[in-house]
Every structure is written in structure tokens, then in C-alpha cells.
């Protein structure tokens, strides 16, 4: 009897020491796509050119190498991923994050402060934006870290901290230690040591990917047509996800289209042309629409006459039917800009106060108003219906746009057609996108197109493109870009728009931020330094024959835009989505 009891005890003890990893992998496969790098160049590095950033993108990387939190655009609040608690310290001198006590790497070791410190030591060498706000990162205990502000506390810094991917010190500790030594020695980025370490970081390819998310993979599961990420048992989310593996087909839009139609690809973030979207609908494939958080803007080179005249720019804003332009940009996947403020329409009411929103000129399509503004600027229509100035000069200019970008090309060609019909004489010039970008930076253009706004909940970030990105203030080496002067007299006062934009989202007082953002939006709305033509939407196939649990269109999760806050990340981690088959 004693022998049986001993045996029973042994069995019970054995069961007791078997870790959580005994849980079984969920069944089912997620069928997605990402244009990952093919072998032999594909690597598992977190900071390499052919590593995780290139191979998994923002959506799938979060399932492998998790950040602290996930941002909900509908509520403006963060949901926990790697962290369990976060917030500003009482004196607002630092930001404190507590790592979830159960957070583990895929090898079973715990995620600790050391991993965060290693991540940020490397980030300092790589010139991360976080260091514009923080001076140091320190461990309070094994699971708590503090990010010490170098100046004013900032909600922008909070987002940067909470959205950064945390890497394992087991892989990157040695490089991080070298980084710490370099910083402790007082060396700067101009030094050879700094440059050599930056180069080593960019070349480091770990043999094994240590994942904090519920999925991981090895190079053996990457092939020419698809790669497969396998469920791993040690993540906080391993118990909630409903897919045993994530299969990602290689390739871009033209390659993934047939796979969507054949049902082998259930979800894709690619931009599909309007006709293709219609084909998906005809094939009974469900579509979800989320913000893409940017759109094409018509850019002026402000040294070019007559685009240095505000009335001409305003007239052009009135003369373009933006709904039509949106449809020709991306079919149902775009909508005409409403508020013309430099802030995404969806975010206007959140980031600006009511009074400012009411005061914004919406530039509704009106050719009469446009004509009136042209006349105010000294132009008249000639016999052929073209605008000419007092000296009889037509507005004969060139509009450069990237030939490869179907959306920007469509927006540009339609804008050109509408403006020419209104009385301009614009010649379309389609060039390789790399050339167009370089020309815009160099100021070597008259009219062009590039994106405005971005997927950030902060006004400062949304104002960034193109008025800072493609203007002399955001460029180096003497490039002038749009050359819209950022210091000028406005309503009898000297203003510095550059500073106003940079300060729009500083501090923790949201009301004050709204006020400052409102001042910038008003100026942009009035002076029209660029014309935000439309806002793009991401129309994504979500084949419910393969995916179950897709929330309906009214669910607030769909307010999250494409990119680092993509709804799919959260829906997979929470186990909301599962394999329908």
C-alpha cells in the first residue's frame, strides 16, 4: 500500500512541476499576408534591415515581440500587453511601467526590467525618438522601470514608450552593455565607437527568436511562398489566442489578389484597387474598413508664382471636388477631406475644441467662389477659358507625381483635370516615386503630391506631414522642399508655425493641447500651404468562411487605424477571432 501511495505522490509531484507549457496549442490557422524578405536574407534580428520589422510589419510583430500596451482609438486608452501598470510618477518627472508578473519569453525565462533597459540602451545608440523626451531609463525593481524625462512630461512620450517593442536581454545584452559603456564614457554619436556599435547592432542576427508574444518562428518555417509562425505556450496571451499558427503569404497586392479570391488568404492589409474590391464583394468575401490615417495632399512649391499667393491656393481648394477626387484615388477606400485643418477628419473633434471646429472653412466645392478668389488675386479668364495675370501669363506649371502609387496617381490626375477645367494649364509628369520624393525635398517641383497626416492620436504628429516633413524646417543639407515660410505675421502678430506645431501636443493638459492645436489648424485652414485632398481608408478582406468572430461594423475597434494600432492585433490576442473551419 505504501508503495502505491509513494507512486501516487510521485505522480502528483511530477504533475505539479510540469510547467504551464503543458497547455495544448489551439487549433486553426490564421491566413494572412506580409511581403517578408525571402531566404537566404531573411533574419530574426530586431534591428536589422531584413529582420523582424521588415518580415512581420507592425501587425504581426506585435504578436511576437510585444510592446507594453495597445492603444484604443475609440476611448483614447491603453490596454495591457507586456505591462500590467503604467503612468506618470506623482511628481511628473518620470514615466513608470510595471511589467506583467506572468510575462515570459518563449524559452520560459521571465521578462524583466533588464530586458527593457537593454532595449533602450540599444535604442539610444540607434537614435530613437524617445530620447527627445527622456534622459535615462532606470530599473526600480525586477519588474518596474522608470523613464526619466529630460524636460516637460509628455503624452507623446507616453505613446512612444508604451508602443516600443521590447527585446530580450538574453539576445541583446552584450550589445546593450557596450552601449552603456560608450554612454558612460561620455562618447557621442560622432565618435567611431558609437558608429561601430551602431553598425554591429544593425548586423546582429540572433540564432533564436525569443518571443514575448504568443507566436514565434524559426528560419526553417520561412519559404518562398509563405512563412509560418507557431504558437508558443509561455506568453501572457498564449491561453487566449485561438490560432495554433499564423500563416503569412509572401507578396504584395497583385500577388495576394488571387489568393483572396481563391479563399486561401483570409485577411490582408494590402491596398486593392476599386475593381478588385468589387470582385471580392461579388465572391462573397466580407470587407472591413478602417482608417488608413493618411491621404494624398497637393503640395505647392511656395517660391513658384502664383502659388505664393494665398488667394490662388484657396481658389484651388474650392475648385477641386474632393469627393470625386477621393473616389478616383481609391474607390470606396477614400473620402474627401472635410475640415481642411491638417488633422484627420475623424480626429478633429477630439483634438480641437468645438469653437475652432465651427470656425474652420470647409472649402466646399464651389467654382464661383474659386473664380472670385482668382479675380481678387488679379487673374482674369482669357478667350480659351484659362486664367491669366495682368501681364497675360497663364498658370502653366508641371505637376509631378509618383507613377507607381496608384492612389497618389489617381488623386493627382483627377486634381489636374479639375484644375485645368477650371482654367489652369497644368502638365502631368509621372516619375518614379524615388525621384518625386527627391525632387520635392530639393524644391525641384511646382506642384506635387505626398501624404498628409499619420496614424497618431496627437496633433503634433498629424501636422508633421507635409508642412514639416517636406519643408525646409524638416530637411537637411540646404534642401528647401515646399519652402513655405514658417515665421510670418498673422492677424497682426508674428507667429512661428514650426514652434507652434512642435508645442501643440506637449504637456499633460489636454485642454491646453486642444487650444494650441486649434491655433495651428486655423492657420493651416486659412493659408492652405497644402491641400489635403482626401483621407484614405483601408478596405481589408476578412473572409468569414475562414475567420470566425469578426466584430460587426459598428464595433469601436474598427476606429483603430492601420499600422501599429491595427485592430487585428488586439482581436487575435484577445481570442476574439478564431478559425471558422
Amino acid at each position, binding site marked *: 500500500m505504501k508503495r502505491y501511495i509513494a507512486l501516487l505522490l510521485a505522480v502528483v509531484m511530477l504533475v505539479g512541476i510540469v510547467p504551464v507549457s503543458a497547455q495544448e496549442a489551439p487549433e486553426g490557422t490564421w491566413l494572412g499576408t506580409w511581403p517578408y*524578405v*525571402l*531566404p*537566404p*536574407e531573411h*533574419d530574426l*534580428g530586431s*534591428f*536589422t*534591415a*531584413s*529582420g523582424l520589422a521588415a518580415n512581420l510589419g507592425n501587425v504581426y510583430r506585435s504578436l511576437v515581440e510585444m510592446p507594453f500596451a495597445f492603444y484604443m482609438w475609440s476611448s483614447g486608452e491603453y490596454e495591457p500587453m507586456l505591462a500590467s501598470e503604467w503612468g506618470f510618477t506623482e511628481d511628473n518627472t518620470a514615466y513608470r511601467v510595471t511589467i506583467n508578473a506572468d510575462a515570459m519569453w518563449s524559452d520560459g525565462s521571465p521578462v524583466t526590467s533588464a530586458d527593457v533597459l537593454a532595449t533602450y540602451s540599444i535604442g539610444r*545608440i*540607434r*537614435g*530613437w*525618438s524617445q530620447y527627445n523626451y527622456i534622459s535615462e531609463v532606470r530599473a526600480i525593481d525586477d519588474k518596474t522601470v522608470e523613464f526619466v524625462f529630460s524636460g516637460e512630461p509628455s503624452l507623446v512620450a507616453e505613446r512612444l514608450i508604451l508602443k516600443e517593442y521590447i527585446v530580450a536581454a538574453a539576445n541583446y545584452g552584450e550589445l546593450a552593455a557596450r552601449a552603456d559603456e560608450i554612454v558612460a564614457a561620455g562618447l557621442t*554619436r560622432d565618435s567611431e565607437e558609437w558608429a561601430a556599435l*551602431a*553598425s554591429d*547592432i*544593425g*548586423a546582429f*542576427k540572433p540564432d533564436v527568436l525569443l518571443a514575448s508574444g504568443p507566436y514565434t518562428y524559426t528560419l526553417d518555417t520561412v*519559404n*518562398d*511562398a*509563405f512563412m509560418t509562425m507557431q504558437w508558443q505556450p509561455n506568453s501572457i496571451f498564449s491561453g487566449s489566442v485561438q490560432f495554433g499558427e499564423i500563416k503569412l*503569404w*509572401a*507578396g504584395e497586392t*497583385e*500577388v495576394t489578389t*488571387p*489568393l483572396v*479570391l*481563391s479563399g*486561401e*488568404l483570409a485577411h490582408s492589409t494590402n491596398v486593392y484597387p476599386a475593381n478588385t474590391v468589387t470582385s471580392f464583394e461579388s465572391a462573397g468575401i466580407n470587407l472591413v474598413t478602417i482608417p488608413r490615417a493618411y491621404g494624398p495632399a497637393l503640395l505647392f512649391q511656395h517660391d513658384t508664382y502664383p502659388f505664393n499667393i494665398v488667394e490662388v491656393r484657396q481658389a484651388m481648394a474650392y475648385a477641386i471636388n474632393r469627393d470625386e477626387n477621393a473616389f478616383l484615388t481609391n474607390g470606396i477606400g477614400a473620402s474627401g477631406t472635410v475640415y481642411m485643418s491638417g488633422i484627420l477628419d475623424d480626429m478633429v473633434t477630439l483634438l480641437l475644441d468645438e469653437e475652432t471646429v465651427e470656425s474652420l472653412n470647409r472649402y466646399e466645392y464651389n467654382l464661383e467662389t474659386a473664380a472670385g478668389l482668382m479675380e481678387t488675386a488679379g487673374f482674369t479668364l482669357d478667350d480659351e477659358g484659362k486664367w491669366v495675370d495682368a501681364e497675360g501669363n497663364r498658370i502653366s506649371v508641371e505637376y509631378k507625381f509618383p507613377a507607381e502609387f496608384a492612389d497618389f496617381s489617381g488623386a493627382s490626375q483627377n486634381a489636374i483635370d479639375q484644375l485645368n477645367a477650371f482654367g489652369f494649364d497644368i502638365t502631368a509628369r509621372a*516619375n*518614379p516615386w*524615388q*525621384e518625386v*520624393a*527627391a525632387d520635392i525635398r530639393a524644391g525641384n517641383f511646382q506642384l506635387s503630391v505626398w*501624404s498628409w497626416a*499619420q496614424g*497618431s492620436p496627437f496633433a503634433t*504628429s498629424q501636422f*508633421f*506631414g507635409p508642412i*514639416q*516633413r517636406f519643408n525646409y524646417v*524638416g*530637411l*537637411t543639407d540646404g534642401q528647401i522642399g515646399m519652402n513655405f515660410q514658417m515665421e510670418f505675421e498673422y492677424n497682426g502678430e508674428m507667429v512661428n508655425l514650426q514652434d507652434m506645431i512642435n508645442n501643440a501636443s506637449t504637456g499633460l493638459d489636454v485642454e491646453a493641447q486642444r487650444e494650441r492645436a486649434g491655433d495651428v489648424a486655423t492657420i493651416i485652414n486659412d493659408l492652405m500651404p497644402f491641400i489635403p485632398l482626401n483621407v484614405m481608408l483601408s478596405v481589408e478582406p476578412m473572409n468569414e468562411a475562414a475567420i470566425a468572430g469578426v466584430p460587426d461594423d459598428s464595433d469601436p475597434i474598427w476606429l483603430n487605424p492601420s*499600422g501599429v494600432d491595427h485592430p487585428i492585433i488586439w482581436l487575435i490576442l484577445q481570442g476574439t477571432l478564431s478559425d471558422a473551419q
Partner: protein
Amino acid sequence: MTSIPTPRPVAAAPRRSPGQVLRRLWDSYSFRVLIQSLVTIWAVTTFTFVLIRLMPGNPIQIRIDQLMNRGLTFEEAEQQAANLFDFDPDAPILEQYVDYIGKLARGDLGNSILGGGTPVNSIILEFLPWTLFSVGLGLLLSFLLGTLLGVIIAYRRGGFLDNFITTVSSILYGIPDYVIALLLILVVGVQLQWFQVGQMRGAYNPAIEPGFTLEFIASIFQHAILPVGTYILSTTGSWVLAMKSSTLSTLGEDFITVAKARGLSETRILSAYVGRNALLPLVTRLAISIGFVVSGSVIVEEFFQYPGLGRRLLRAITERDYTTMQGIFLVISISVVAANALSDLLLGWLDPRVRVGKGRGR
């Protein structure tokens, strides 16, 4: 009187000056072809090197744009992008060229700029075999099929078969290969569902262990069906039309009439007289086509996600991976030049007049 014999001087071998040696070598047709080929490869390599750098944007600039799309400032993006690549876009082009040629002389094509130190040699070795296999097989099959059909319809000229095959060949000849590839995928794959689009992608089924097994070889052929089929459909037409034209021309020659008058059988005339002579012009063309096998078909490989050199070249061009582009272009240049040289030598062997140097009559 005796005489002391004086030793006869040993006849010295006639010595040739280096100039004479070179002249004699230059008189050799094969040597001339070889030198021309080497000079051509060097010229193309240099031209490609310069041309690549004249393209708008460089790898770092493109990465900067991508990072700025995520909201980084130019300065931040520049800093991060510079750390990613072992490449200095500001280095003088002459310095870059000397470095490139120096490495090339040692057989080193450098490392992929985007691939974090992956040697370009290994990238080419990874992708080239699949292109050689698929495009080579496609070329071989289309050549055999095209020449066979060409002879048949030439013999039955004016009949239904001639009209039908000529029309179909003309149509196929006029359709670009990528359109055929798209039609195969969308019509045959998606609409008719004769095959699963995804399962035909790649070079083989990754679930099968690579090795000399029937299963693995079968998988390779199964995955090559679509690209090879596309090449056959898009190129057979040209072989058919060329062979038909060449055969008709040969059939009108006097020696065919003589052969017929001698009472030789049709089979013997076809094989020994018509076929052989009609094939001659096509052999040269085939040799040149073999040279272009290496470049594959960029769009076809991309559509089928076939891991050939063309697909890799597309990414290298898009992201301005200079070293990989240079390596792939070099391999393509060598293959085309080598095929042309082979064609020249073949032609010189078939027609001795071609070998004769200027005014030398040798």
C-alpha cells in the same frame, strides 16, 4: 693540308616578337571572339555600375522615406537608416568602382546591402538554379514543339492545320507572358479551380524534405508547371512562325528539287535535307535565347512567387540594393555574352567565311 673543321652554327629557332605573337593570336577567330566577349562584359559591367547609381534614390534614401512615413523626422530617419546598411552613399563613385572591380577580380560580388551581410554570391546561387530550370525547360520544350509544328505546317501549307496553328501562334506571340500568367492564375486557378493557387507557389512543397526522392522531384515539376507553361505558351508561337518560314524557304531550294528528282523518300528529304537546313538559322537564335534564360522573367516569377533570379532582381531594383543588382546584372551579362560568343563560334564553324579576318583570306 688539313683543315680544321669549323663548327657549324646551330640554326636558331626563329624568334617572334610579342607584337607578332599578339598579331597571330588576333588572327585567330576564336581568340578575337573571346577578347570581344571579355571587353563587352567589362563595358556592360561598368555601364551597369554607373547606371545603377544614376537611378533616383539610394538604399539609405529609400529607407529614410519609409521611416519618415512612420513619423520620424528627417534627422532621426537618416540616423536610423545609416545604421542599417554597410554602405556609404557619399563615397566618391570612382572609389566605389575601384572597390567593386577589385573585389570582382577576386570573384567576390560583395554583400547584399539590404541583406545584412549576406554575400551576393550566395543569393545568386540560391535563386539562379530555379530560373535555369524553369526558363531553360520552358525554352527547350517551346523550341522542340515550335520547330516540330513549324515543319509540319510548312509541309501542309495552305491547309486547315496550317491556318489554325499559324493563327494561334500569331496570337500567342502577340500576348505578353505576364498576361498569360495572369490568365492562368485567374481563369484556370480562381475561376475554373483546376488547381489551388497557393499550393502552386514556390519551387516545391515545403512539407516535403528536399532530396533525391520521387516525391520531391515530382513536387518540383508540379510547382514548375505554371511558369514553364507560361514560357511555352508565350514563346512557342515565335518558334513555329520562324521554323515555318525557314522550312518554306528551304523547300524552295534547288537541292530539294534535285533530291526529289533523285527519287529520295519524303522522310529522308525531310530529315537530311529540309529539317537540318531549315534549323540552321534557328540554332543561332536558340543560342542567343539561352543567354537570356538567366534573366528569367521578372513578372512571371513574381506572379507565381517562383524563387528565381528575376523575382530577386525586382526587389533589388525596388529597394536599390546596388550590390545585388550589380551581381545579378553581371551574371545576366556573362550569360548573354557567352551565348553570343558561342553563337559566333558555331556560325564560324558552320560557315568558314565568317572566320576570315579582314583582308587576310585565312
